[in-house]
């Protein structure tokens, strides 16, 4: 807590106006959490900035007063990255939501950090272009949050993640200075690639206020397939077979039985409730290539034990299936009061083994775990269905987590594929990185934010 909280609040009101500074309990309680289960902390104040210069003045003031600053978008993060720290000023950017420029000559789009991912997709789509990254929360997630967490999504297999589409950033640093990193040039090697340093930095190095994004031409054709399996292993084998046949589908998603049932209860899109596993596969590109790939994929599915393969009849049905899949995490909350989502990722050759390991861990700790995820990326979302008020069970959840991480690291995997470290994975980071890499991270943080002002205590604790 800063020494003069009232001075700080007065100062913030002076900078932004009283309507943009929230301090009453009823106003700030709804900012104590993000999309992560069981993590919450009360901030000192929540403030809304309208541009980089306001962000800069807020940071300068907070620095003088010694108050930490936690940047927040729509608060949908899944690792506790935007959960406040005690006494912090939450700097909320959702009111900076303009799309500033769609540059069809350079295939680029520039937006403020609070712009909604879905709106960016739509703005590109309207001029025949394509912004591929599509995290599950894209209907409300902000592009600034996507950059801060380097979010992935369903299309990661073929198109990569947020990082692959960021050409430039406007960033406000911990001393309040404003800098531009990157440009509209396809090639640009002037100096260190500092832009990439800020992507995935989880709000610990600076505040992203504007984003310049790369766009692609919109694929002219798409085909979505839904393959049903009686055995989980058969689905995993199909994925390996597709990749081994040198086909890279746009999307290659997997849902287990529990997830299928919850998603179907919500979305009612005709998923087979009695299947052990389903694969949701999409191929896109030139119509001839799509037709060819879809035929090959269907053949591979059948050859590896799919009981049925259904093709989406049209774009609307395909969109429905993708939307249903995006709801998986939240839909699982139907089963138990608390839903804790994991994000471990393994090399794709380790997938089938990893899935079996998760099953064994669930049995060992007598826990209910549902699994879905981006099979094509090796990115799994084992989801523990529990009740945070049951302390005995929550203890078993912790043990199960540790076991899942153990199995992941044994397979040369990573503790987080797309959700970030935040608070949720902090304790496991040093084990994955090793001492030297871990210290290098802290050295970078110390150099850029020496007073540990920005989102302190996320990713790691500063020594």
């Amino acid at each position, binding site marked *: 807590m800063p020494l003069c909280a009232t001075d700080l609040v007065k100062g913030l009101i002076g900078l932004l106006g009283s309507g943009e500074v*929230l301090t*009453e*309990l*009823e*106003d700030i*309680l*709804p*900012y*104590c*959490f*993000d*999309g992560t*289960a069981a993590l919450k902390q009360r901030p000192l104040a929540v403030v*809304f900035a309208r541009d980089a210069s306001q962000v800069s003045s807020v940071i300068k003031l907070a620095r003088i007063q010694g108050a930490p600053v936690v940047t927040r978008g*729509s*608060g*949908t993060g899944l690792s506790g990255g935007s959960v406040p720290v005690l006494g912090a000023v939450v700097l909320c950017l*959702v*009111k900076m*939501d303009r799309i500033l420029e769609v540059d069809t000559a350079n295939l680029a789009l520039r937006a403020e950090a609070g712009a*909604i991912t*879905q709106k960016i997709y739509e703005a590109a789509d309207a001029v025949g272009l394509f912004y591929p990254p599509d995290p599950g*929360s894209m*209907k*409300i*997630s902000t592009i600034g949050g996507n950059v801060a967490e380097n979010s992935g999504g369903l299309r990661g297999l073929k198109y990569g993640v947020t990082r692959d589409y960021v050409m430039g950033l406007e960033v406000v640093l911990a001393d309040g200075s404003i800098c531009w990193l990157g440009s509209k040039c396809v090639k640009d090697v002037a100096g260190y690639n500092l832009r990439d340093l800020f992507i995935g930095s989880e709000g610990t190095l600076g505040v992203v206020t504007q984003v310049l994004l790369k766009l692609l031409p919109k694929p002219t054709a798409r085909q979505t397939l839904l393959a049903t399996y009686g055995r989980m292993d058969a689905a995993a084998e199909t994925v390996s077979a597709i990749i081994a046949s040198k086909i890279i589908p746009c999307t290659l998603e997997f849902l287990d039985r529990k997830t299928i049932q*919850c*998603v179907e*209860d*919500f*979305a009612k899109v005709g998923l087979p409730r009695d299947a052990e596993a389903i694969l949701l596969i999409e191929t896109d590109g030139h119509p001839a290539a799509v037709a060819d790939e879809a035929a090959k994929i269907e053949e591979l599915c059948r050859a590896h034990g799919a009981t049925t393969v259904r093709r989406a009849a049209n774009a609307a049905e395909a969109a429905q299936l993708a939307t249903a899949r995006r*709801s*998986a*995490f*939240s*839909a699982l*909350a*139907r089963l138990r*009061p*608390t*839903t804790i989502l994991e994000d471990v990722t393994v090399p794709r050759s380790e997938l089938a083994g990893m899935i079996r390991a998760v099953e064994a861990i669930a049995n060992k700790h007598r826990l209910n775990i549902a699994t879905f995820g981006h099979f094509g990326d090796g990115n799994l979302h084992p989801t523990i269905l529990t*009740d*945070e*008020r049951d302390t005995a069970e929550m203890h078993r959840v912790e043990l199960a987590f540790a076991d899942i991480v153990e199995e992941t690291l044994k397979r040369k995997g990573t503790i987080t594929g797309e959700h970030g470290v935040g608070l949720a994975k902090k304790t496991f980071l040093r084990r994955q990185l090793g001492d030297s890499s871990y210290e290098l991270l802290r050295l970078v943080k110390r150099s850029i934010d020496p007073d540990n002002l920005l989102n302190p205590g996320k990713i790691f604790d500063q020594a």
Partner: protein
Amino acid sequence: MKTLAEMDYSVLQQCMHCGMCLPTCPTYVETKEERNSPRGRISLMRAIADGELDVTKAFGEEMYYCLGCLACTSACPADVNYAELFETARAEVEKKGVLASPKRDAIRWFALRLIFTRPRLLRFVGRLLWLWQVSGGQTAFRKLGLTRLLPKNLRRLEPQAPAVRAKFSHQLIRAVEKPAAMKRRVAVLTGCVQDLVFSDVNRATGDVLLANGCEVHTPPVQPCCGSLHAHNGDMESARELARRQLDLIDPTNFDAIISNAGGCGSHFRHYDHLLADDAKYAERAAEWSRKLRDVSEYLVEIDFRKPSAPARGACAVTYHESCHLCHGQKVSKQPREILKAIPGVELRECGEATWCCGSAGIYNITQPETSSWLQDRKVEHLRATGAVVVATANPGCHLQIENGLRAAGDKAEVVHPVVLLARAYREELQG
């Protein structure tokens, strides 16, 4: 009535604050502040249950800033029962009296306890209003500029006062009407505003059901459904009205109980939940809820006869979904199927069809600014379709949209889908 602290905690816990509700919540979209969002409101309710927050005036104001449109429940993958949370929270706000003032208390007593619990008194008031309107009193009052003498809020509302019908439902519909060949027996619920202002919709409901082989029972004096009470924190009156309704209409005698107003239907449908702890009525309420259908839903369910009258030329129609029909009752496709079956109708979808129009019960009276922002937004989307007819299935939406269109100088007709269907059946006979 259970308080937030006493209610089943798992209902509060069901919200895992993923944020999927945010883009569908009109008040969050308006302010972009979490407190004005579904997950924000739930976090406040949970803080009260946890003892971290008292029921304060600010909490009370927040609960009444919520439209209660339930758009969040359609968006929620986790199936959070927001309707229950919302009603429980408002009831607690009333119990604690954090918003109480002599004026507010008087208005609440007049509306909730006096007028809307006594159907004959309501009709008497309606008749007086009708006399005022047809006698020229209203016109004279307006022409003489006397509206200036009204308090500010009434001055704003006066021009929006609906035109009361010369005949109410019981003067248009007999208690029992038999079709040529009877296949089913149904009871029709006539509502309060619907009864006074849209008795033609009730007549049309009877007509289309008769045309589809239903024996139609319409008790001439029906109590209010109680939704106004439940949504405004008076659960006691809501339960009493539900019991009266069940005394009047025994669901075991009918194949279906038909509602034609989205708001009433959504509340009627949950009588089972409302009276679950009532030893005497629980069973009958459960039967009632099982048989409750919106009229469009029921027509589609019984595979209604498609009218064969020749089209009188193409007519562009757009459909606005009543919140409590689409979000509250999940009836969304059926009214469109009715419209598409009518010869000559070209159904044009409008943007944000499932967004609240700002009527939201009495929200247009209690929250005029947000209400008129939503009204403008709705009218813009409706007009963009170029449709000459706006179909909608709830009296509140009907009035709000009609007022909005007229203010924008638009002459488009606002009409309930079954009124159009009844017209098409009539035109068949006229050949």
